[in-house]
């Protein structure tokens, strides 16, 4: 047997081919990071410039949002309130259905039922928002008005219902994940001690997953906060502030969608206002997303302490 010397060449991590490949990958990664950072920087700069003209106190404290009026109002609170109204309503509607679906999928559905239901829920997540929006405007709103004639053509209820439907898959899939983190032995132990499955689920399993479920709800609410198309189509974009869900509702996102259609001159104060609103929206969804992820992660580590014996 003769020994052959190791060859030097392409297999070497420092060879030109390997190094070139690594540089291409790094450039792509850097590009996406840079583009993301650029968007944030532009929004931040424009927002800072806007706050040079309109004080943050007026922006965050004012109660009128009318940047295009002759006597413009730059109070963002009505937009935040509208956003909160839609997001809270949608989450409130989606939570019970979503959580019960998740429990059913995890603990009751047999293999076939589970996979069909899973496919349907996943399909819901694939429907484009504009389709949901038309569904709200052309089916849900007329249905609401037929039983409740006082409701306007553009209204918050319809938006809440359909945004709720849109965020349902998020709650179902993430809550099921949270339930999956609860050890099966908890269910077995409770059942072996003579408790019904329902009692064990209600008192032991769901409380043990509560933190993770809360995370799924926050993630879903973050999606609702950022939702634009459905809300624009269903809730319109009234200029005055409304607190009544039977009427149209204006949110951070619908204002931005409408403003981008108009011809606001670049560099004007209204132009700056759009960026300030975008910054608020970004911080809100970003913060909720981070909080939701943190809760989900904590849920994965197990929170058995929450069981109610």
């Amino acid at each position, binding site marked *: 047997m003769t020994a052959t010397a190791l060859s030097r060449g392409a297999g070497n991590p420092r060879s030109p081919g390997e190094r070139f490949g690594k540089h291409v990958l790094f450039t792509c990664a850097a590009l996406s990071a840079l583009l993301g950072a650029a968007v944030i920087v532009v929004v931040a700069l424009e927002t800072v410039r806007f706050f040079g003209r309109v004080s943050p106190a007026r922006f965050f404290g004012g109660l009128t949002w009318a940047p295009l009026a002759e006597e413009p109002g730059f109070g963002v609170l009505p937009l935040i309130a509208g956003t909160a109204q839609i997001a809270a309503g949608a989450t409130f509607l989606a939570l019970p259905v979503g959580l019960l679906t998740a429990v059913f999928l995890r603990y009751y559905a047999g*293999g076939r039922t589970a996979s069909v239901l899973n496919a349907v829920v996943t399909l819901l997540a694939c429907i484009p928002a504009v389709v949901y929006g038309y569904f709200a405007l052309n089916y849900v709103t007329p249905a609401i008005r037929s039983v409740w004639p006082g409701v306007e053509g553009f209204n918050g209820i319809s938006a809440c219902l359909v945004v709720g439907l849109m965020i349902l898959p998020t709650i179902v899939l993430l809550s099921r994940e949270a339930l999956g983190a609860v050890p099966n032995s908890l269910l077995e132990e409770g059942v072996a001690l*003579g408790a019904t499955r329902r009692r064990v689920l209600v008192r032991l399993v769901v409380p043990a997953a509560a933190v993770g479920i809360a995370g799924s709800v926050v993630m879903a609410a973050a999606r609702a906060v950022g939702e634009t198309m459905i809300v624009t189509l269903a809730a319109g974009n009234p200029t005055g502030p409304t607190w009544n869900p039977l009427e149209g509702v204006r949110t951070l996102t619908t204002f931005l969608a409408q403003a981008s259609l108009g011809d606001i001159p670049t560099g004007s104060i209204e132009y700056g206002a759009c960026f300030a609103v975008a910054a608020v929206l970004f911080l809100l969804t970003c913060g909720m997303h981070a909080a939701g992820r943190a809760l989900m992660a904590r849920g994965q580590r197990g929170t058995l302490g929450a*069981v109610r*014996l």
Partner: protein
Amino acid sequence: MVMSAPGPALPVLSTERLTVRFDGRAVLKDVSIEIPLGRVVSIIGPAGSGKTTLLRSFNRMNELIPGAKTAGTVHFQGVDLYDADIDQAEVRRRIGMVFQKATLFPKSVFDNVAFGLRAKGVEGDLHGLVEEALTVVGLWSGGAEVLDARALDLTAGEQRRLSIARALALKPDCLLLDEPTAALDPAASAKVESIIHALRHECTIVLATSDHTQAGRLSDLTAYLDSGRLMEYGATQELFTNPRNERTESYLTGRLP
């Protein structure tokens, strides 16, 4: 020690051609066994021989595993345990089970023992019943502090005894113990064994153990399971000193391939 004969005692639990499959794979095959009233029965056999599955089929716990299919019959005091109308919660109250690795609830000792009683719908003050169960396992000596102690702060041995007390609080007719002394030190094991020995007067006990010397110390009857089949079943002393089955003998003498 007086050896109780298998004798004509009424079977409290009996299986007939019991076969349990998980996703089509048979883990128990055609097992027919009778557990006489008031006796301690050990199920021994190598790892993966189906000891736990047999134990779990006695209180319908296998149904919680997706893909589990049970064929054959299991009778409890003459009633078909797997009848569709049977109250499963009652089955598990009357045929209690202590898992090899108990999941204690991260609450107080009292709450752990009271869980089953509350689920059963027992009203009023549960202290008497809880203290009674804790006394049997030697965790109660009159001080209230043990009731408020966090279950997870107990030692491994105490946790095992607490998990037995939890099942005992329901005063089961039959108690299923899966590897009751697994992972315990010798002193803690001895305590658990003495509890089992004392319990023989309270209820019928079926225990699965991979320590056949434990089966010899504790049980009136021993069953040897191998690859899901019941190879041999009889009076413990008889089975240990004069096994009729070759595999039983190989297992008992440590010569199993």
